[in-house]
């Protein structure tokens, strides 16, 4: 083996260090969350914490720390955003990748990228000033802040990643597959839906998982449209997500109080959701490689 030059040795150490920084932070956050999240769970009891249906952290005499409403809201909200956002995103991706005339694509694609770049607080602002009053009027509610409004905002927010990741996957489908389908007398639409989309399925699945990740982790935008009462979720009720649950109370929860510790515990639960999602993403990608 050739002897390595000193510069290379130094540089490889630098690169290693950079890599370790990211790992170190993940470890640090994990350890911190576990350590600071467990005490409250131990005090409240795991069952009561995860499955308690009442979150009343500031009750003077009998505070309750059940986060089931928050968990379910996060799950329903994310699921709703996926149900609305993924079909729209997928069809946009098919259109952009396969059918759009160049001038149209030249307008739509940058618009989608711009959508990805809009800060979430702006989504929240528009949601609060436009969407929420609209929901209130349309459905004749006493207030428009609701799970429904949150779902719409989240659905729009996941669009860019769903569109761009599925579009790339669809573009990578070999032309030969599509030609073969067309030559058998399939229409272009049939070809895209029955050949191109299945061939791109691991990419599309990745897009969905990324969308779920974005939706479940979002706080700022939905903080402004959800109403934030910790009700058990219902479409037109004010609801509180795991993320917003932390954001709302953290600035007035006294240091060292059970309330503050319980917020860390919510963070831990959210973190576990994200871990689960990452594992799922890894699984999806691995399956893509096998095929």
């Amino acid at each position, binding site marked *: 083996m050739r002897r390595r030059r000193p510069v290379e040795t130094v540089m490889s150490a630098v690169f290693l260090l950079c890599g370790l920084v990211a790992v170190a932070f993940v470890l640090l956050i994990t350890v911190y969350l576990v350590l600071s999240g467990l005490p409250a769970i131990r005090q409240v009891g795991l069952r009561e914490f995860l499955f308690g249906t009442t979150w009343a952290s500031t009750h003077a005499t009998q505070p309750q720390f059940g986060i089931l409403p928050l968990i379910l809201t996060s799950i329903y909200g994310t699921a709703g955003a996926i149900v609305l956002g993924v079909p729209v995103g997928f069809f946009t991706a098919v259109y952009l990748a396969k059918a759009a005339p160049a001038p149209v694509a030249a307008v739509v694609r940058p618009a989608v990228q711009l959508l990805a770049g809009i800060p979430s607080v702006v989504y929240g602002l528009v949601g609060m000033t436009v969407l929420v009053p609209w929901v209130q009027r349309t459905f004749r509610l006493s207030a428009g802040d609701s799970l429904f409004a949150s779902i719409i905002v989240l659905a729009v927010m996941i669009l860019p990643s769903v569109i761009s990741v599925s579009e790339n996957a669809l573009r990578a489908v070999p032309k*030969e597959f599509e030609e*073969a*389908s067309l030559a058998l007398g399939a229409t272009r639409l049939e070809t895209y839906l029955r050949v191109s989309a299945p061939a791109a399925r691991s990419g599309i699945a990745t897009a969905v998982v990324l969308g779920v990740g974005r939706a479940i982790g979002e706080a700022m935008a939905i903080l402004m449209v959800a109403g934030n009462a910790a009700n058990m979720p219902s479409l037109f009720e004010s609801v509180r997500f795991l993320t917003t649950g932390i954001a709302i109370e953290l600035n007035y929860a006294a240091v060292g109080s059970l309330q503050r510790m319980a917020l860390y515990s919510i963070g831990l639960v959210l973190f576990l959701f994200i871990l689960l999602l990452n594992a799922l993403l890894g699984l999806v990608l691995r399956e893509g490689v096998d095929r």
Partner: protein
Amino acid sequence: MAPIIRAERLELYYGTHPALRGITMDLPANQITALIGPSGCGKSTFLRTLDRMNDLVPTVSIRGRVLYRGEDIYAPGRDVTALRKQIGMVFQKANPFPMSIYDNVAYGPRTHGIRDRGRLDAIVEESLRGAAIWDEVRDRLKKSALGLSGGQQQRLCIARALAVEPDVLLMDEATSALDPISAARIEELILELKQRYTIIMVTHNLQQAARVSDRTAFFLLGEVIEYGPTGQLFSMPRDKRTEEYITGRFG
């Protein structure tokens, strides 16, 4: 014999570049017609005009007519999907879909509305038998088609084309990417298929054209230089350029 396909003064342009310069040609039914010529001579382009696959290229413009059973396939309002069901195509590179062997063959019939399981089973078996691959895959119909060898994949693609019961099979250098043994099997298969189908094949392999085809057309720079019975074209070509090409002096 009446031609099943007739091209009349067919011209095709990629943008402003002429790829076909006025081709008039009768293609008889239940015969194998080989299209030969050097690369870029327009033979593949011509083949692809016959099932309108050139429609997919945005810059293409076409003049002249192609009559299939007496009707112009480029007439306005012509149903292209119905045409492509009648005129099947096998490509140079075997391109099975990334699905099971069964689903590959059933794709066409399903597209055309056949849902009945029993009927699909029958079509799949018959098509695979027709493409001489049934015995090799009967035990693994549910396995991915991508696990087959190159030659098997190409026969599967032929089976897939047969499954929609076409009239005409277009083959675009269907054996050029295969090893000699697989290629020979496909040649045998082509000879069998001739009983039931009209076959038009593009080939770079002159021996293959001589072995397999009934009629041969020699293309050069977008024109048909010579077209006639294969034996005659190879043994006593009328045109000097044909002679030079088949004796290997250019191309």
